[in-house]
């Protein structure tokens, strides 16, 4: 894996301690102080805004308007969270996001891994052409397929459901998935599959019993990459599912801010906090995996 680093980290900067050189303790502690300052600055910049939002999500609109925004709330208004949950219909938007994301992920993985296997391990004429055609899809921006899809879904009477999102996410997510899976399969020697077929098993079985298990880790990585791409999509979500009761989290937040933004600060901050909080839990559970996955997806994409 790209980032299984802790074990192999060479720590290239480690300067061997050299007795007899003068820099000594004073210089080292200055250096340590500078490092601490750098870390502190980095954390303030990256983390403080989130904290700022959290404390303001607990204030009444009045308090937010009339006291410095960095002060802690005088009166903890947890009911902002109830208000956000209800007026923002967060339960609905979360459900919609889950209902749109999980089936898409399932289809992307099933179709993408099989396709990656066929395009990389199996040998047939036209393989490269098909691979290149699919890879070209990585570069196609969503805007290019937006209008025809909009028309197609309407003509098929698919609108009014989350199917347009599921179908679009599946198709739009395939190129990157196929590419990443093909790369992973490339690392596995073909002989393994050939050997497995000596006893007469078909390629499909050898894909299922050997190919898929061998890339199981990679599948999780790809799934995480696609999860975040789909979960955070805005373009398709506001185009194909912009009826209020079909809004995903992203689209719902956008509407929420328009509907209540200028008046009710507390609930707006609270809604953002809830959105971020959910992702934070997932992130804390899987962060190294997520970081690896997204970085791998980028290098290969």
């Amino acid at each position, binding site marked *: 894996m790209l980032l299984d680093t802790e074990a192999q980290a060479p720590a290239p900067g480690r300067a061997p301690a050299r007795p007899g050189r003068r820099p000594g303790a004073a210089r080292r502690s200055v250096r340590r102080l500078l490092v601490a300052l750098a870390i502190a600055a980095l954390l303030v910049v990256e983390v403080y805004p989130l904290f700022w939002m959290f404390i303001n999500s607990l204030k009444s609109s009045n308090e937010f308007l009339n006291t410095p925004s960095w002060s802690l709330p005088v009166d903890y208004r947890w009911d902002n969270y109830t208000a956000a949950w209800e007026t923002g219909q967060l339960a609905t938007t979360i459900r919609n996001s889950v209902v749109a994301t999980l089936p898409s992920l399932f289809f992307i993985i099933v179709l993408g891994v*099989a396709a990656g296997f*066929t395009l990389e391990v199996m040998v047939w004429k036209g393989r490269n052409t098909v691979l290149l055609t699919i890879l070209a899809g990585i570069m196609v921006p969503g805007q290019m397929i937006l209008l*025809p899809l909009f028309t197609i879904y309407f003509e098929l009477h698919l609108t009014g459901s989350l199917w347009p999102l599921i179908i679009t996410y599946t198709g739009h997510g395939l190129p990157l998935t196929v590419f990443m899976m093909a790369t992973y399969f490339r690392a596995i020697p073909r002989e393994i599959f050939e050997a497995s077929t000596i006893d007469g098993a078909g390629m499909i079985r050898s894909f299922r019993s050997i190919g898929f298990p061998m890339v199981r880790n990679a599948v999780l990585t790809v799934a995480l990459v696609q999860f975040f791409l789909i979960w955070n999509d*805005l373009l398709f979500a506001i185009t194909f599912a912009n009826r209020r009761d079909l809004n995903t989290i992203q689209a719902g937040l*956008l509407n929420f801010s328009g509907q209540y933004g200028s008046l009710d600060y507390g609930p707006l901050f609270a809604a953002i906090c809830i959105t*971020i909080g959910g992702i934070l839990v*997932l992130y804390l559970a899987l962060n190294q995996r997520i970081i690896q996955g997204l970085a791998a997806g980028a290098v290969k994409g």
Partner: protein
Amino acid sequence: MKSVLGDRRAIAILLGPALVVYTLVMLVPVVWSFGYTFVSGNPLEGFRFAGLSNFSRLVDDPDVHAALLFTLKYAVIMTIGQVVIGYTLALFYVFVLRRSSTLVRTLVFFPVVVPTVAVALLYQKIFQSAPRDGIVNELLVNVGLDRVDWLGSGTTAFIVIVVMDIWRSVGFYGVLIYAGLIDIPDDIIESARIDGARGWSLFRRIVLPLSLPILLSSIIFSINGTIKVFDSVLALTNGGPGSSNTPLTLYMYRTAFAYSDYGYGATIALLLTIMCFIVTLFIFRSARRDITT
């Protein structure tokens, strides 16, 4: 054995479904969208054949020029920002924090996975100036400077967009480049040290040349992402104030849905697609030359 690896039935079953979905969701719409560039109108009012008029309009449209300029300006500044700051961050992880960098890396990476709309709304409040100041203006006032109507003017709103998107993505580039840096073999650096290379000269002579491939990957990824910028601009300023910060993606969206002109919208989308292809191919070619020579 080739025959087993070339089993047509297996190929059809394994590849077929993916190919069907890809064709229906990507290939057909791309061709269809290309067809739209020769018409004007929308499904509600019907379509009229328009010949090449969409293309000549594209060439003359001042809004397209402005959107193109914004897109390029944004892509260039963001790519430089993301890669330079990401690289600095990666150097910091590898050479200063070393083994203890995991926690910092994890924290700094977090904004990458937060939904863009949430980040944009947060930044609206941070940089707010009416009806009350956000934290940035509060800070400015406290150190004796003038408050700024950040989202009220094109230039300052652009700064906010860039700051926000850098904030959102820099943890990602830090990790990406970090992954490349730790692949530099330890003994190369050790031997350079023994030769007396320190600090800047160690960086310039050893680290930088050896990390060029990962830098190029980062640049490709960054440009490809930033040229398609949509979510963050839409949610933060909606292309404003006025139309001063409208990228091509958003202009396309408005043209199709707010001004209900599918034909012209598709033409803008085509321009965007061509730009993505050109940039990627161009960088791939120059990258190959750089790495091989």
